[in-house]
């Protein structure tokens, strides 16, 4: 452990010494020194050497730590590893006749984990800047690692690599944003830093339907219409349950039916006897229109 030892002078002065001033006071008392580590890595052990003689009270204040102990001046004060696990500023205070303090810093240890936030959990294919991830490296004591490190982001859809990008952390954070892939299915998102790996999965789903086409026929009670298999522009089947809206416009008015896609196709029965123009839509996408003629009325005797 590389440790510089800044020196803190603590002048232990008797009451008479306190009443005196300047150099005479210092010469009347004893000079006490405490050497705190200049830098320490989380979970490391350290010693704080002291000089002087007699008893003193030592305090250590830091993140998660508040210690008070009686010490013999001239001895080393030991800092155990569990006292230095949290990165941050620590104050060592040594009180004899008066109190003096010194501050030292504990920095994070080696990376042992990554907070990895990936959005969204489900994304339509082919959307620009739709997938993003934020990686924050931590050490084994859950301290933020603020020294620059390179996080490798890898996105794979099926066996096809979508993105592989090294990103240097800035202020402890690395992030990416990218376009979703072209095929529906699981998108594996991996962030790695040395041997530390975090994995997430984003479900890529079909985007909006593309080229919605319908066919229909007149029945005794109205019109039956159904779509061709509904797919997005990349050819991915649009998931079952997606709502397709059929609208039939007749001379007498308009009828609308919402139907979910089942096994790739949406079907609807629309009542009405006259000629109708049937349109189809799903979300913001309009499909092709279909014209269906009027019901031919049957006359008694079977004559049209």
């Amino acid at each position: 452990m590389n440790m510089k030892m800044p020196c803190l002078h603590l002048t232990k002065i008797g009451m008479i010494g306190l009443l005196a001033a300047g150099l005479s006071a210092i010469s009347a008392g004893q000079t006490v020194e405490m050497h705190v580590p200049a830098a320490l890595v989380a979970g490391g052990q350290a010693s704080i050497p002291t000089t002087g003689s007699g008893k003193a009270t030592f305090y250590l204040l830091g993140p998660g730590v508040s210690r008070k102990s009686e010490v013999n001046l001239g001895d080393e004060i030991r800092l155990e590893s569990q006292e230095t696990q949290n990165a941050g500023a620590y104050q060592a205070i040594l009180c004899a006749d008066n109190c003096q303090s010194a501050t030292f810093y504990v920095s994070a240890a080696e990376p042992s984990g990554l907070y990895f936030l990936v959005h969204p959990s489900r994304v339509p294919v082919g959307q620009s800047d739709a997938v993003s991830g934020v990686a924050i490296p931590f050490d084994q004591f859950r301290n933020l690692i603020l020294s620059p490190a390179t996080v490798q982001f890898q996105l794979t859809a099926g066996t096809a690599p979508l993105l592989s990008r090294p990103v240097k952390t800035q202020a402890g954070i690395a992030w990416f944003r990218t376009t979703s892939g072209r095929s529906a299915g699981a998108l594996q998102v991996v962030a790695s830093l040395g041997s530390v790996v975090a994995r997430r999965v984003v479900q890529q789903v079909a985007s909006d339907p593309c080229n919605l086409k319908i066919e229909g026929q007149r029945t005794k009670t109205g019109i039956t219409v159904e779509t061709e298999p509904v797919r997005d522009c990349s050819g991915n089947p649009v998931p079952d349950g997606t709502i397709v809206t059929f609208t039939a416009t007749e001379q007498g008015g308009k009828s609308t039916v919402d139907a979910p896609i089942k096994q790739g196709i949406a079907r609807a029965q629309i009542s009405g006897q006259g000629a109708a123009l049937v349109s189809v839509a799903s979300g913001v996408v309009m499909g092709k229109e279909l014209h269906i003629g009027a019901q031919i009325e049957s006359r008694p005797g079977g004559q049209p």
Partner: protein
Amino acid sequence: MKSFLAATHFRKFLGTAMLALLSVFPTALNAADSASELSVQFDVGRAGPRAIESLTERAIVRDYRSAWMSLAEAVESNNGDLLETPFAGDAKRVLHETVISQQRSGLHQRYLNQSHKLEAVFYAPEGDVMELHDTAEYEQQVFDGSKSIQDQHVVVHYVVLMTPSSDRWVVRQLQVVPQF
């Protein structure tokens, strides 16, 4: 006689009213004092990749300020319950450990005249995490029981991670560094 009784009643009423006022006022004054002791300035100019909406900006100032008020009260009274709402994750764990450790050693701390210069340095694309740098200045007093062992003005650099919860932003990481 009547006027004497009336005067006695009036004095009694005045006494009760004064007592009532005294019992209410110290709390109000303390709240005002502690509130005026804590200022937060927030600079969102460097935030990215997501821009910080003005509503979020106000919420961060409100919740970070509230977190520090709770923190100061928790380490002064050694009451870890005060950390429950404004803190989460590792920040809450470490602060709880501080309070428990102070209870054991008989120490407590006081943070006075707090001034926080907060700067957003990262705001995630989806708005689910924000990193802030806080240059905090305050007077730190350390007590062993009732005996003051330290009283100093300090400038401290905090790296802060905040995340949104159901109704507020919570402090998830609070780590001191020598400098940014």
